[in-house]
């Protein structure tokens, strides 16, 4: 245990102390309330029974220790309470139910999420837990049989019933001693074994939850390159060896229970890629425990293979699923940061994107002078230096500026804002990539150069409110630019458009026959909690129908984490998602992200699904157009 504390304390610094009320709330809901575990009802309840059982039964350890020494003594006050005896009775049974359920899950049901986990160890632990609960019940039963119960008879119905098995004679007296000793010894064995097993999470999970992120999940922790007081050899460029991991990352590895909920939710794993977030944590933990070597073993490929690092789409499904607040994306990004920034080693096909972002200010190397071409005939104001700032700056993003399919979103958004009389303007050629694809690839350095330049442009233009139609730009502007001094009120176009519909400034015509299924973008739903507004727009134009995985449980389109610029191995993620969308029977697959638009439209075209992939803004613009009375002039 001391070793673990030492290893955690040796980790690189990261700020996780502020915001105590939020941490306390997390502790109550995630640990005490078992909120994350109960995302899956039956295994969640199974775990909750055992966990709550441990909390309720904790004082019985003292009671039993006292009982070992003196069979006529107990804990003052509590040992005499009937209600407590009832709770102990109830939770001993619930723990046993939990253990049986757990064994059923592991032995009969055998879900895929346990692939690669230490299963034998779990069996031993479950046997010990069962033993603890069972010996407690039997000890209580023999005490009742012997009349040694300090608590009112009848308060513990199960122990009462069991007590009928025991006569009031010598054998029971011996059995009472046997059960209390067995109970206490099992507990001691359990405690001794704990630090060596995955059940260490009993100790680390609550701590890890406390130190979990309290801000936006979509924000990455910035690195600092510009501090002149830090010598070059001490600058952190992500994680190259175990020594580079932050203390929270080390704590993450020790908190992993190998439950595999992350792996189950992972789109990369689901489509046959090498990545399993669970195996990633286990690999890192093994490397941390292996200790120092000279020279230090690189984490990639020592603990984690290169494929694993690049398979991740940073969708956050694993982070959302993790019951103990492990932050897998931070690990992946730190591994990428080291590979890209120190080793210059990454999938070759992504190099043009990295170079184009840096040189041409957009990931496709398009001419910046053509950035506002889509708006040329729409009368959209292009903000020149010195111009009066608009109420909203419309941040169009590279995809909607340059990609032919995504441009329709920009056109529709601009038309809708004009129709609603919103005062807005675009930056045109002065808008650059936010740096997001470079950052998600691991090039923090290039990202920061863009963050600083864009913040300078936005501040000089006097921008206070921004509307963005790309969830990746939105996430970066809203959650990451404050780290670089850029503080703006940022909304996603679905948020602004839905409020305009609500206020009656836009009046769409609803088509009753139009069945629409809405695909949540990871960076909108999971990373930024924007769930309702795009759905309001869908409901305003047609009949919504939900996919199996939606909202915060959405399934990535395959483009996240800079995968728009990488070649995909194994089964394409977009095909899997399109298949799921087609299962709803909808005719329209609504999206709210230019990358989802491109990926899912590609998916529809390579398969036989008959779906129209379209941004919510385009749908809304069509519905507003349909409602408008015919122009008498034309």
């Amino acid at each position, binding site marked *: 245990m001391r070793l673990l504390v030492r290893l955690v304390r040796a980790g690189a610094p990261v700020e996780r102390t502020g915001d105590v009320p939020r941490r306390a709330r997390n502790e109550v809901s995630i640990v005490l309330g078992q909120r994350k575990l109960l995302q899956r009802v039956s295994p969640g309840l199974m775990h909750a029974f055992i966990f709550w059982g441990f909390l309720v039964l904790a004082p019985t350890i003292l009671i039993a220790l006292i009982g070992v020494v003196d069979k006529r003594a107990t804990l003052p006050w509590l040992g005499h309470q009937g209600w407590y005896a009832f709770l102990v009775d109830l939770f001993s049974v619930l723990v046993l139910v939990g253990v049986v359920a757990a064994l059923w899950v592991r032995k009969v049901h055998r879900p895929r999420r346990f692939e690669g986990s230490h299963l034998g160890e779990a069996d031993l632990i479950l046997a010990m837990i069962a033993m603890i609960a069972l010996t407690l019940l039997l000890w209580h039963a023999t005490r009742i049989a012997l009349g040694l119960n300090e608590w009112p008879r009848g308060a513990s119905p199960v122990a009462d019933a069991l007590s009928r098995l025991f006569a009031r004679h010598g054998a029971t007296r011996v059995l009472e001693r046997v059960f209390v000793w067995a109970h206490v010894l099992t507990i001691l064995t359990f405690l001794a074994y704990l630090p060596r097993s995955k059940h260490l999470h009993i100790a680390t999970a609550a701590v890890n939850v406390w130190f979990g992120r309290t801000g936006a999940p979509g924000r990455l922790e910035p690195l600092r390159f510009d501090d002149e007081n830090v010598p070059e050899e001490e600058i952190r460029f992500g994680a190259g060896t175990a020594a580079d991991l932050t203390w929270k990352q080390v704590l993450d590895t020790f908190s992993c229970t190998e439950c595999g909920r992350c792996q189950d939710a992972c789109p990369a794993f689901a489509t046959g890629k090498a990545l399993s977030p669970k195996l990633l944590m286990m690999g890192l933990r093994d490397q941390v425990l292996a200790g120092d070597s000279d020279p230090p073993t690189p984490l990639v490929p020592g603990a984690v293979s290169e494929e694993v690092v690049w398979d991740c789409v940073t969708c956050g499904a694993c982070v959302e699923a993790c019951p103990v607040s492990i932050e897998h994306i931070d690990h992946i990004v730190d591994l990428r940061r080291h590979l890209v920034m120190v080793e210059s080693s990454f999938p070759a*096909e992504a190099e043009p994107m990295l170079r184009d972002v840096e040189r041409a200010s957009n990931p*496709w190397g398009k001419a910046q002078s053509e950035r506002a071409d889509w708006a040329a005939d729409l009368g959209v104001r292009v903000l020149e230096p010195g111009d009066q700032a608009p109420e909203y700056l419309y941040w169009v993003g590279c995809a909607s500026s340059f990609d032919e399919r995504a441009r329709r979103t920009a056109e529709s958004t601009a038309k809708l804002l004009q129709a609603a009389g919103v005062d807005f303007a675009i930056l045109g050629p002065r808008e650059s990539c936010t740096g997001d694809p470079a950052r998600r690839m691991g090039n923090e350095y290039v990202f920061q150069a863009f963050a600083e330049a864009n913040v300078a442009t936005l501040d000089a233009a006097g921008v206070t409110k921004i509307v963005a139609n790309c969830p990746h730009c939105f996430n970066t502007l809203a959650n990451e630019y404050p780290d670089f001094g850029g503080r703006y009120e940022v909304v996603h176009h679905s948020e602004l458009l839905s409020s305009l519909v609500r206020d009656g400034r836009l009046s769409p015509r609803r088509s009753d026959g139009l069945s629409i299924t809405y695909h949540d973008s990871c960076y909108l739903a999971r990373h930024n909690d924007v769930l309702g507004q795009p759905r309001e727009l869908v409901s305003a134009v047609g009949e919504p129908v939900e996919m199996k995985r939606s909202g915060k449980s959405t399934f990535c389109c395959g483009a996240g984490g800079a995968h728009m610029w990488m070649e995909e191995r194994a089964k394409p993620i977009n095909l899997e998602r399109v298949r799921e969308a087609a299962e709803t029977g909808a005719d329209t697959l609504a999206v709210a992200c230019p990358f989802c638009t491109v990926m899912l439209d590609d998916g529809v075209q390579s398969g036989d699904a008959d779906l129209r992939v379209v941004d919510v803004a385009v749908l809304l613009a069509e519905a507003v157009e349909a409602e408008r009375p015919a122009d008498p002039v034309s």
Partner: protein
Amino acid sequence: MSTLVFIDRADAELSAQALTFARGLGDELHAALMGEAAASAPDDLAAYGVSVAHIAEGVDPYAPAAWAQAIVELVERTAPAAVVGPGTDRGNEVLAHVAARIDQPMAANCVSLTPGDPATLTRVRWGGSLLEEARLHGAPMLVTVAPHAVTAETVAPGSAPATVSASPFTPALSDADLVVQVSERAGALAAGVSLTDAEVVVSGGRGVGSAAGFEVIEELAGLLGGAVGCSRAVTSAGWRPHTDQVGQTGTKISPEIYIACGISGATQHMAGCKGAKKLLAINPDGEASIFASADYAVIGDLHEIVPAISAEIRKARSG
């Protein structure tokens, strides 16, 4: 005054274009040919208006400085108004050596030239995406001709010189002139034309429909001596290997012409082919975004159009 044209025998077509370009710059058209094997060539030159063919001997195999020295001797001996070379690698290299040796300016890849003092010319910059109008303050005028800036034309039958007088000579070379000389000719590294280097790339996209559908694409590429490319959708579908992919995550190409068949024009694809000088798109959807970047468009089914083009090429070549 005469005009001297350097003939790059490795590229007869571009050399003929240089002769066509040079005609009219001076009174007489002289040709400079390198190597003993050139002795048989002069007769063909009459048709292009050449009256004298200077044949440098003792300069094989290719040695740029030696070839330049031969031309410098001719410049000293015949005092031409202009020395013109084809816009081939060797044309540009030899003329640059000549320019360095006589310390005169030289303009590479010209599309037009008007003698005068100074001469005025138009030349190609940025690989053809921009033209430059310039003045050339030097004598003789040293220029190379941009490929395909003019069409090679023979002179009218009546005005062609009756014979070409062959004038062999052995230039006086120093050892230094032969330091850089081809020591060996090796075979090509790989069979076929690589995507990066190909002058013609014929690509297929999702519209090709299947791996087998690429037969027509391969046929056309083969006829044009080009390489076959494809879009990301095609490699994702497993119809072609990733090495054939044109695009941002594939190969970036810069052919003279890019023929895109059944490709919609996704941003990621266009990032890979923006170096193409000309883009011909074949797509059934007249609204396909690729047409926004294309120079030439053919609307319709590639499975009918591409074989028709191949047939037309065969017809043109046999006829």
